[in-house]
């Protein structure tokens, strides 16, 4: 077991009884308040037996860097105003791309401690009003100081991890493409996602554009041939290419947490938080391994310890695929597949919706979008939908689902969380 792992328990049980998310995408006509209102309205409507917003006692809101992206900080009271939680306490949390899971962690601890009974956790980010260069600079604020100086971008750090993984285990870009292709297979099934096209759809669209321009139409044999073609999939931070990277997005999400003894007042189908863990990491120069995130290992040990569950008990998960290599490393760090074997299992289709261990049925950050502060609770929204059998066309087929999990990463692995949920 790793340092600090334990079988720590919550002071009392905590259940999720509502969840909502805005559409994710690039919305020139909506700001963070509009997006949060959209998520909050869906959350209220999702509570089967109803909730009076006046009964929400406090909230935590994850936001990474709206300070930079839209030049506005101090989002707690702004969200308190939007939701009507004002004058009660709303606190902003920051953990880079894991900001809203940290919001949920604070909310969880507040209810488990007995301080509150009914609280909101959510997140929001508004990125698309910036240019790509500005967003790149804004996100790079969350790399380790030494990485930024050495010219690393966000995709660059993950690119370096990919070369280390390829070298150690004999994988290659073609294996990461299986992750991208799988995410895009799920994408058309998520009506709230940013991208709704499969790789095949995008190939046909590109061919049509070339034909219209009177230029030579590419003749790709399959998805991978297209993804190897730099005119379709240009390099960003080799070996990370465009289709290895999640997009720039706007969006918001939130969940309602209540004390276990109150859960049935709100719904007959609550989802219980049975395990939570969070770890910290040091960056490329000091991390123990270049093919693993030390923060993930810590988070997983804590969450499995709290829940008494093992990796094989988890039936499906949303993991933080900011870049394709990240999804591969996460599924190994969390124990779903042995180290160095994940890419083979993925190649065999095990992480597809029909596979043994479905990963990112939402389309993942790659296709659903990644408004960074909103991502953690949006991953929980997907698990809530799947566990309740309400995921529509993307519902994992043919299985009675009762254990799901979310893994959220902030920065270049500086913060990782792992949360396990149960439907009883």
């Amino acid at each position, binding site marked *: 077991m790793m340092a600090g792992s334990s079988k720590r328990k919550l002071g009392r049980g905590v259940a999720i009884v509502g969840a909502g998310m805005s559409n994710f995408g690039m919305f020139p006509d909506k700001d963070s308040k509009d997006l949060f209102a959209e998520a909050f309205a869906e959350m209220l409507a999702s509570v089967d037996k109803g909730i009076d917003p006046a009964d929400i006692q406090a909230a935590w809101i994850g936001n990474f860097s709206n300070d930079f992206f839209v030049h506005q900080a101090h989002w707690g009271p702004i969200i308190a105003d939007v939701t009507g939680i004002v004058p009660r306490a709303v606190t902003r949390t920051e953990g880079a791309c894991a900001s809203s899971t940290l919001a949920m962690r604070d909310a969880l601890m507040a209810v488990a401690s007995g301080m509150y009974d009914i609280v909101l956790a959510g997140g929001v980010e508004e990125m698309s009003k910036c240019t790509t260069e500005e967003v790149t600079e804004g996100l790079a604020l969350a790399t380790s100081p030494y990485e930024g100086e050495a010219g690393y971008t966000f995709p660059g750090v993950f690119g370096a991890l990919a070369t280390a993984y390829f070298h150690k285990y004999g994988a290659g870009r073609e294996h990461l493409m299986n992750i991208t292709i799988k995410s895009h297979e799920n994408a058309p099934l998520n009506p709230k996602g940013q991208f709704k096209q499969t790789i095949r759809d995008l190939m046909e669209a590109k061919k049509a554009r070339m034909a219209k321009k009177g230029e030579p139409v590419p003749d790709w044999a399959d998805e991978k041939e297209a993804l190897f073609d730099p005119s379709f999939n240009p390099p960003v931070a*080799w070996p990370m290419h465009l289709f290895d990277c999640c997009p720039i997005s706007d969006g918001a999400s939130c969940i309602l947490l209540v004390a276990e003894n109150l859960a049935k007042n709100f719904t007959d189908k609550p989802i219980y938080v049975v395990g939570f863990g969070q770890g910290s990491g040091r960056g490329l120069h000091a991390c123990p391994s*270049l093919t693993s995130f030390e923060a993930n290992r810590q988070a997983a040990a804590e969450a499995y310890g709290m829940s008494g569950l093992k990796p094989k008990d988890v039936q499906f998960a949303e993991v933080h695929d900011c870049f394709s290599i990240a999804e591969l490393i996460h599924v190994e760090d969390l124990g779903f597949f042995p180290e160095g074997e994940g890419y083979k299992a993925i190649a065999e289709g095990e992480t597809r919706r029909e596979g043994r261990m479905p990963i990112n049925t939402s389309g993942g950050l790659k296709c659903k979008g990644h408004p960074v502060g909103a991502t953690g609770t949006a991953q929980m929204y997907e698990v809530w939908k799947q566990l309740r059998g309400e995921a529509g066309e993307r519902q994992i087929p043919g299985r009675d689902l009762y254990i799901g999990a979310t893994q959220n990463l902030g920065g270049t692995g500086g913060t990782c969380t792992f949360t396990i949920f149960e439907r009883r």
Partner: protein
Amino acid sequence: MEERPISDISFRKFLAEEKLMGSKCGKCGKLYVPPRHFCYECGSSQMEWHEMKGEGELAAYTCIFVCPAFMAEEGYGRKNPYCTGVVALSEGLRVVARIEGVDASKPESIKIGMPLKVTFLHRGEGDKAKTYLAFKPA
């Protein structure tokens, strides 16, 4: 005995003087680059400066085609990518550093395990002068 405080600011001043300096635990001898105030191993805060040999091998790398503004100012970008990497030092530590003297437009020509030696890139002048840690093929 080097008397400068153990800090990133001192570390960067050493780089400007073309020295790659780490901190060494005065109690258990463990090395850290960049320097650390406390020893992970024994918890001691008795740190002293230690000059690294500046030799190592490439442990991981990436070739950046979409680059941050400060690298664009050096003329890098989509048509002129650069390489940055992770270097495993002969002392058993790692540093992140720019990799010079390789063809970043042909990433597959760059090999993990290739021997490297330290070099220092001086950029800007006056108040904007800055030295970046880099490595090149040995």
